[in-house]
């Protein structure tokens, strides 16, 4: 599903976030990207979502070489993946239902289909009945689940999340991770960037350790751990 091939990423300020990074994640796999801040976790997700482009090297997503996607093709590309953010990135002036419906409206689904799918997605994250609430009326954990519902409402084959549990207490963080695991159980490829190593120890999922923009062996182990 995802393949990084000798990818370098240097930002305009001269910082090199990725230095010859190579790895791949198969279809239906669940993987945690982990490492200290600045290790390159977020950069990887931004390259997958075409928010950034690699300085050198190639990034494949769903067997597609992303370097071949022109700017005008980016919206269509992003509709095939679900994205979850640490700060949720919800529209606070619109009710929860509209937030979740946004990707479908953008993609031009008819209203009946939109309503049906929005209810299904909210049901999956345990927020059915909250359609009319404003995001700020909800707790942080609930807001994060609205963000997840929005990411999955288009039934993407790939779900990426950047520190989705960063603002949550341990119980909520665990629940949120379990939610991602459930989507993975039904075949969705899930890639989660997180620095919370204690939390991910509780999941039988692949871990990719990053340091200084490269994949590194975990402390006292092989390059990757399962």
């Amino acid at each position, binding site marked *: 599903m995802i393949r990084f091939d000798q990818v370098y990423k240097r930002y305009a300020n001269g910082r090199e976030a990725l230095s010859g990074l190579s790895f791949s994640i198969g279809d239906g796999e669940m993987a945690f990207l982990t490492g200290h801040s600045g290790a390159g976790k977020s950069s990887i997700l931004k390259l997958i*979502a075409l*928010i950034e482009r690699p300085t050198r090297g190639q990034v494949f997503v769903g067997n597609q070489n992303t370097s071949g996607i022109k700017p*005008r093709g980016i*919206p*269509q*590309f*992003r*509709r095939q993946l679900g*994205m979850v953010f640490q700060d949720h*990135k*919800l*529209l606070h002036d619109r009710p929860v239902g509209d937030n979740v419906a*946004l*990707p479908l*409206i*953008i*993609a*031009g*689904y*008819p*209203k009946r289909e939109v309503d049906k799918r929005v209810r299904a997605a909210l049901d999956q994250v345990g927020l059915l009945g909250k359609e009319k609430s404003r995001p700020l009326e909800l707790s942080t954990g609930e807001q994060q689940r609205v963000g997840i519902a*929005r990411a999955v409402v288009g039934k993407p084959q790939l779900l990426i999340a950047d520190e989705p549990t960063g603002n949550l207490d341990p119980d909520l963080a665990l629940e949120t991770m379990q939610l991602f695991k459930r989507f993975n159980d039904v075949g969705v490829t899930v890639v989660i960037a997180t620095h919370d190593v204690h939390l991910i120890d509780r999941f039988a999922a692949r871990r990719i350790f990053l340091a200084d923009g490269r994949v590194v062996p975990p402390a006292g182990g092989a390059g990757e751990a399962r």
Partner: protein
Amino acid sequence: MKLEAWLARHAQTLVGSLGRIVQHPVGAVSTMAVIGVALALPLLLDVFLQNSDAATANWNQAFDISVYLDKKAASSRAPALAKQLRARPDVAAVRIITAEEALAQFRAASGFGAALDALSDNPLPDTLVVTPALSASTPDGTLTLKQAVASLADVQTVQIDTDWVNRLYALLDILRRIVWLTAGLLGVGVILVVGNTIRLDILNRRAEIEVMKLVGATDGFARRPFLYSAVWYGLGGGVMAWGLVALAVALMSGPIDHLASLYGSQFHLRGLRFAQGMAVLGGSVALSWLGSWLAATRHIRGIEPT
């Protein structure tokens, strides 16, 4: 995308952008007011011109042509020529002033009675005063008529005081240009004002646009609400312009009717007709939409999620 869903989305965006304006009315209303005032100025000039055209159409007697007959012509020629001229479609009326009548008038008006008595015979010719038909009351029409009359037998001189009329028409032509120039400049002004308002709207909603782009919105999708906001700005501005013109006409019409009545004229000041008002609304919406399109296309392209 199905047409039905597409139409539904557009309708929703249209109503949604109106809702946003209702929630933040101060900025929107001031934008509309700027559009309204900017459009009202050329419209008022245009209304003035339309009324000038209507008024000058009533001044056809000012174009009267004086036809002086040859003094050697028989006195029967004047009625014959008058009859001949009355038959022309571009002639409304012909009045005959015989040489005797002219002399009597001149004697009474000039005070040269004694000097005139010294003359052995009447120095004045028979005269025809020709009033052109309404359709011929233009500089070109009168000139054609003048030439036609001059070529008739026994006509000595044809006099017509068209100079001031020509000056008036030239002045109106200049005013007409000024209307177009002001309309053009202020139209560009409307585009810039709406563009600037939309630019600020976009900056205020930057985060929202980033989120939309993250979940797959095209620039066109993100731009749509701003285009519809501009439609409302244009509509509001057009209504204000129409209203301002109607107000100005209402304020002017009393004094102008009074002035016209002093000249014995039935002239009545006329405002924008309904079709013209609708054209103002359409033009206002079009200018506003264009301003928004230019600003939104440019600034939305610059917003990318980071």
